């Protein structure tokens, strides 16, 4: 087995164990009000951060891509207009795609 295969399988095993660990923590540990509130707020904080990082950065650098940011802006407008979920992501992707087709990079 090559070193690369070991890296691939170790990555897969490590990622899987981390996923399983969260599911396996006894629920009574989550019973305290602060811990429960933390578990509830974590997805909000992480998904908001992930959205911003994916939209505005590339690797360790900021990456201002006008078409992508306009797509995210269109999603915000669609959300404010109470569009259903799929309409929001289609609006976002279509806006970015249309701007790129029009030459905005």
């Amino acid at each position: 087995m090559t070193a690369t295969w070991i890296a691939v399988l170790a990555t897969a095993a490590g990622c899987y164990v981390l996923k399983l660990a969260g599911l396996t923590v006894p629920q009574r540990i989550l019973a305290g009000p602060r811990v429960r509130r933390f578990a509830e707020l974590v997805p909000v904080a992480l998904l908001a951060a992930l959205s911003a990082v994916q939209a505005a950065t590339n690797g360790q650098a900021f990456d201002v891509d006008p078409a992508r940011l306009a797509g995210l802006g269109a999603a915000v407008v669609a959300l404010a207009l109470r569009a259903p979920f799929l309409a929001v992501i289609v609006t976002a992707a279509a806006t970015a795609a249309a701007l790129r087709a029009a030459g905005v990079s």
Partner: protein
Amino acid sequence: MPGCERAAPVGGPRADRQPRPVRDGIGLGLAVGVSGVAFGAAAVSSGLTVWQSCALSVLAFTGASQFALAGVIASGGSLLAGTAGAILLGSRNTLYGLRLAEVLRPRGLRRVPVALGVIDETTAITLAQPDPAAATKAFTTTFWCLYLTWNLATLGGALGAGRIGSPQAFGLDVVGPAAFLALIWPRLKSGRTERLVALAGVALALATTTVLPVGVPVILAATAALAGALAAPAAEGSPEVADCTSPEDPAK
């Protein structure tokens, strides 16, 4: 939701849009899964074989970690550093699992397949549902649709399908950010703490992007959730998740 009009959704009180777990799950699964083409193409061009690329998508199944390993290999970095970085990136799935376990309540060996599906997209869509049954349906649908699409797309990308056109040309790079925002939107509208935590998470992640290794800034955003939880803990004895009888639940 029939007979449960006053229920607080798992993800927050009174989403103003009716969540459709199956339809939304399939839509998100297809849209995000197609990006597997980009991973397959990137992985092969970084020096992984087609089978190694596919093994990562089948077994690791967490995009950011997969891209991280391929990126380090492409830049000639050490395999150990690449593996460590990829696993570190996967640690946010542990935090998601804490919350998903409360909603999905997988028992015993059921955890084994469920764990593979604990990622950003499934978490976001599951927690946006109004009750545990819809949450389970949303998780299962999103997981399977995304898993199949991501793996087929990885194979396609590794075999050269990336040459047909880049996902960016179709605007697919904005699908993730838009979907995450859409899925936490009801929670942002539901409470001031949620909005402050989200803003602080964004600020922390962006402020540290240039100085911390890729992926760490997003995990650092969890400290915003910690601060929010310490400042405004859940009310004692507040109802369990998505209790049909609960009125506006301050804990959500």
